[in-house]
């Protein structure tokens, strides 16, 4: 097998996300650099960022990129993602896909092959459950009053046993709106309920969390989780597009208008270990305080300063290097996500017999 860290360093040095968060900023191209002009009165009114250091751009809020700047970015295959200040995705500007149609067709074929699709979808769910269990166990070890956590771990374990037994229907009913994957959704739902039911116990008071609420998140912790999941969705979508696959057609998630179903499939396993762990750590180390979120008619959003800190911590986590559980070499979480995309494409093309989820111990 490949040796230690050196292998991917060349590819990963370029992996950097430029987050544009300052309202009213104008971004132009100047030689081989982006020139960021901040609104008047800002401390550093002009910042230059070399294009060679940017792998993708995330635009949060009212910020203007000129057409020459966008062209220069697209020419270099750098995607530009537009998000609302809350982290909701408006969409992305991506360079042309090239002629990599083979893997895309293989994935579409996999979508219509229920037994193989079911097998891969089950692995996506398994990755999520195994990693949720790992997060809970990690915290349960360090505390006395861990009965509720261990109870949730047991429930997730039971869900994993049910998952191992789950079989696709022999015949797909014409009115099956779950595409034959209903059992997987049921198992995933019960395990997630057990996990989110105890997640609040991991947070230092006065923070509270009673369960997952989306659209809109009606408490600060849910708002943080939603923001983090949005960022992760964008990262994963960008990686899928870089690999040349269609992010809109997933295996577990049903395709739907504007839904990056494949990104949601791939990121299931990464939600607990990337987003949840960043949120928990920031809260427990005091990097976030309840005052960092403001309420708007019952919905919560991060204030600017806290949002910047959150982006920094999220990026740090993605760039954190770990030992890959299957291949044994040191790589970043970001490259782990990309590997999962590539492995799924190889499973679709019949190169490997099984899609193996990314799991931690």
């Amino acid at each position, binding site marked *: 097998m490949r040796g230690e860290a050196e292998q991917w360093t060349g590819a990963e040095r370029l992996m950097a996300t430029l987050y544009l968060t300052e309202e009213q900023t104008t971004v132009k191209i100047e030689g081989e650099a982006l020139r960021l002009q901040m609104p008047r009165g800002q401390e550093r009114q002009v910042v230059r960022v070399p294009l060679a250091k940017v792998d993708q751009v995330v635009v949060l809020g009212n910020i203007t990129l000129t057409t020459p700047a966008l062209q220069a970015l697209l020419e270099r295959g750098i995607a530009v993602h537009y998000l609302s200040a809350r982290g909701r995705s408006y969409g992305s500007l991506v360079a042309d896909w090239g002629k990599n149609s083979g893997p895309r067709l293989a994935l579409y074929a996999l979508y219509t092959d229920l037994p193989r699709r079911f097998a891969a979808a089950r692995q996506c769910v398994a990755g999520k459950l195994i990693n949720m269990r790992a997060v809970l166990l990690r915290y349960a070890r360090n505390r006395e009053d861990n009965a509720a956590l261990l109870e949730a771990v047991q429930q997730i374990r039971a869900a994993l046993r049910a998952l191992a037994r789950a079989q696709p229907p022999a015949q797909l009913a014409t009115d099956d709106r779950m595409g034959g994957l209903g059992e997987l959704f049921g198992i995933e739902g019960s395990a997630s309920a057990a996990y989110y039911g105890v997640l609040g116990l991991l947070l230092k008071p006065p923070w509270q969390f009673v369960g997952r609420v989306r659209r809109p998140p009606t408490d600060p912790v849910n708002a943080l989780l939603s923001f983090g999941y949005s960022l992760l969705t964008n990262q994963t979508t960008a990686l899928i597009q870089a690999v040349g696959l269609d992010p809109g057609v997933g295996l577990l998630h049903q395709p739907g208008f504007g839904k990056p179903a494949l990104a949601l499939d791939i990121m299931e396993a990464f939600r607990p270990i990337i987003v949840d762990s960043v949120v928990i750590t920031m809260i427990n180390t005091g990097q976030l305080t309840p005052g960092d979120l403001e309420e708007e008619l019952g919905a919560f959003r991060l204030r600017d300063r806290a949002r910047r800190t959150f982006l920094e911590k999220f990026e740090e986590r993605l760039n954190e290097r770990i030992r890959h559980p299957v291949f044994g070499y040191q790589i970043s979480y970001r490259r782990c996500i990309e590997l999962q995309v590539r492995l799924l494409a190889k499973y679709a093309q019949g190169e490997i017999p*099984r899609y*193996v989820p990314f799991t931690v111990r």
Partner: protein
Amino acid sequence: MHAREPIPLAMLNALAYCPRRFVYEHVQGEMLLNEHVVEGALLHAGIDLGGTVWEGERVQQRRVYVWSERLGLVGFCDLVETQTGAIYPVEYKKGRPRRWFNDHAQLCAQALCLEERLGITIPRGAIFYFAARRREVVEFTATLRAEVEALVAQAHALALAGRLPPPIEQRARCRECSLEPLCLPDEVEQLAQEHAIPAWEESEL
């Protein structure tokens, strides 16, 4: 029946290096940069400007478009040189004379194209290696010609099939290949042996 698409000459080089690289590059249109690729592109920047230079007896034509109807090939010669009646291709490569025959195959295929266009026989050509700063003369022997024709046939067969061949056994080539991060030869080999992967279904849950 599909019309046979011509194979770019540079892709023959890729095929001689590794069939899997050929399908990634030629069929799937994949391309990644590493230091070898970037260095090669920089060194080529001066050569890729077309034009003709007369130096006494010697005529040099740069970036000459060539093709072969018979073999289904198309591409460019970096340089076609004419000297005292002899005409031959010269290919520019970064690095040193190589252990592998891919550069020779690419050059010989250029000669086959020129022969078909001009109705002549070209006995030899040359490769200029930047790192060694010298030309290596390559004889277009009957053996090399036969190998190149077999390579062209393999290229058309692979392009038609479109499937990825398995990773090659000579992994030393993988270490220098820019496509390794997406080809994942070791990872595919490991995961292809299903029993080698820890399965969560069978573990103590």
